[in-house]
């Protein structure tokens, strides 16, 4: 099963490599990884998605919690949550009809064209991983030049809060 794990990590050099190293060392998968500073300068927030059965997930969360740099951890998939992945996708866009077609699809997916070149469009799209996958599929007729995704960032709904 796919899980989204969100971590408050000490903002220390080497901390991220301990998290990533743990996955490599113990043979767990990382599907996506997203990390950035928070409003508290001493902490980073890291979100990763991984796949595993309950036993593997139990070990992954225990092993992560054991890392001294991991301050707090939550499995977002255990409750109601919001997940967002950001994608920038550059496609070949030549000629009126192709450009119109791409613009239409972008609107349907509530994306934005953020850069326009004589022969390219760069589209920004935010959503769940599934929605982004669907958009890429919808672009099947266009020539995709580049895809970049932020990886999932996530947060629990309502009063559930991950902080110190």
């Amino acid at each position, binding site marked *: 099963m796919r899980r989204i794990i969100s971590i408050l990590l000490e903002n220390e*050099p080497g901390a991220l*490599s301990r998290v990533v190293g743990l996955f490599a060392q113990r043979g767990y998968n990382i599907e996506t990884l997203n990390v950035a500073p928070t409003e508290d300068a001493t902490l980073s927030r890291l979100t990763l998605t991984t796949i595993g059965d309950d*036993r593997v997930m139990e*070990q992954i969360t225990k092993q992560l*919690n*054991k890392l*001294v740099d991991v*301050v707090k951890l939550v499995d977002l998939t255990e409750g109601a949550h919001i997940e967002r992945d950001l994608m920038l996708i550059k496609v070949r866009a030549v000629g009126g009809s192709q450009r119109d077609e791409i613009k239409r699809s972008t609107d349907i997916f509530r994306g934005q064209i953020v850069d326009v070149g004589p022969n390219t469009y760069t589209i920004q799209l935010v959503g769940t991983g599934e929605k982004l996958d669907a958009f890429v599929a919808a672009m099947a007729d266009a020539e995709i030049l580049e895809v970049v995704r932020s990886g999932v960032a996530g947060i629990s709904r309502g009063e559930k809060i991950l902080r110190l």
Partner: protein
Amino acid sequence: MELLSGGEMIARALEDEGVEYIFGYPGGAVLHIYDALFKNCQVPHVLVRHEQAATHAADGYARATGKPGVVLVTSGPGATNAVTGIATAYMDSIPMVVFSGQVASHLIGEDAFQETDMVGISRPIVKHSFMVRRTEDLPATIKKAFHIATTGRPGPVVIDIPKDITRPDAKFEYEYPDSVKIRSYSPAQRGHTGQIRKAVKLLLSAKRPVIYSGGGVIQGEASELLTALARKLNFPVTNTLMGLGAYPGSDRQFLGMLGMHGFYEANMAMHHSDVILAVGARFDDRVTNTVSKFCPGAKIIHIDIDPTSISKTVAADIPIVGPVQSVLQDLIDGIDLLREKEPSLPDSGALARWWKQIDEWREKHGLWHGRRYGESDRIMPQQVIESLYRVTRGDAYVTSDVGQHQMFAAQYYKFDQPRRWINSGGLGTMGFGLPAAIGAKLAFPDKHVACVTGEGSIQMNIQELSTCTQYNTPVKIINLRNNYLGMVKQWQDMQYEGRYAMSTYEDSLPDFVKLVEAYGHVGMQITRLDELDARMEEAFAMEDRLVFLDIFIDPMEHVYPMHIAPNGAMKDMWLSKNERT
């Protein structure tokens, strides 16, 4: 406040920590530190002959005393040489603090002379690591390192220190903190009361119980409580290789070691049990044999301070996260309380039947009940350990290397006290024994320290004979000489039709007697059984000399019992070359 350089801070912090020995080896990146140690430090430094030995000696000291081992090595090759010893300590959860030098801060990342990314290299084999970036951070970092290494599940911590951090001309205020608080680190202090209550009920309802205890009982200083609990309930006890001594080896309730080379009665009792109390043991694959066939009828209570040890390989029915000491005390209290209400528990009739069954197993194939090894005109390895046990009256600190000799020592030396058996279980590091013996002997100069080894293993750190000369550590080396990498040969006999691929040395072995004499020690060669005890006595009578006993044993002997693998259960064992369960 006092002003100190980084080097001086390290020297002072080691004193303030109460460190008794530093095991190390100098080099460019740590010369400021060594100069500070030389000028003013009460803590003696032991110069080994290879950095691997520094870590093993510190480790042997730690296992013998329960205090953290301290290591100091230089950058680059000094640091990488220490890696095997750090991994050894990590696998067996041994408290250790390793100071490694690093190239100066401004050179990091430039492939500078003797630069290696020690924090990176050691990352998967440390409990935690630090790279010191400002001299002012040293006292707090060192305090944290000792705290992390020694609390919770113990383990090695590396502090990597760039050379400029320790320069003598940059002085800063020094104050060693009394305590530390690390917001993201708080090992469990007590077991969960609800879980403990459930465990008490299950224990008292057991009809075929076994206590399976491990290294955690020794780490957690809970041997007395474990013994009290077992005696109170009249439950049988088996220990892992790492747990030997946690329960008295010569006690009637002790079934011997369990696992791959465990005792028949221990493995049989585990397999047929209905309740297993696992205490500070981690269900290692050398214990369980095939996990899906592991103890099919047993409910498992698992006490461990590290949640990752619980349900990692074998699922626990009642997990209890907490330190063995407090959890065992809570269990004992809970048992007393419940028995006030229900004095008939546990079912003494069922227990009597269980003990009768266990005694039958013991009589049938027990290692200490009738000989389980072959007749030979050569000395049998088991006889050597029995002789060692007699001569040292079961009171020695015994270190070992890795191989058949290690298993014979584990099976035949009955350890009655914790911390007396010092071996590398998790990593299985050949070369561990001699340096570990140095550490133990420095910790307990008045005690006998014996290193049981093989001619293969001893050569992996034989240079430490010189360290023994320098620091006068008169350990006794018991070389079970079979002229083979015996454990490898055993597998080749059993699985590769006796093709001894590179497990012999042909005629290349040194004359060990001459070799140790060259280092200034005493060597003895023993080839006949009738001289074994007398020479052993003679060796141990030479209290201030290192004696190397080169004992020629039957090279064809195998270690039994041995789990049948793959696909075997706990109860499936080879009992001799042609006998199986």
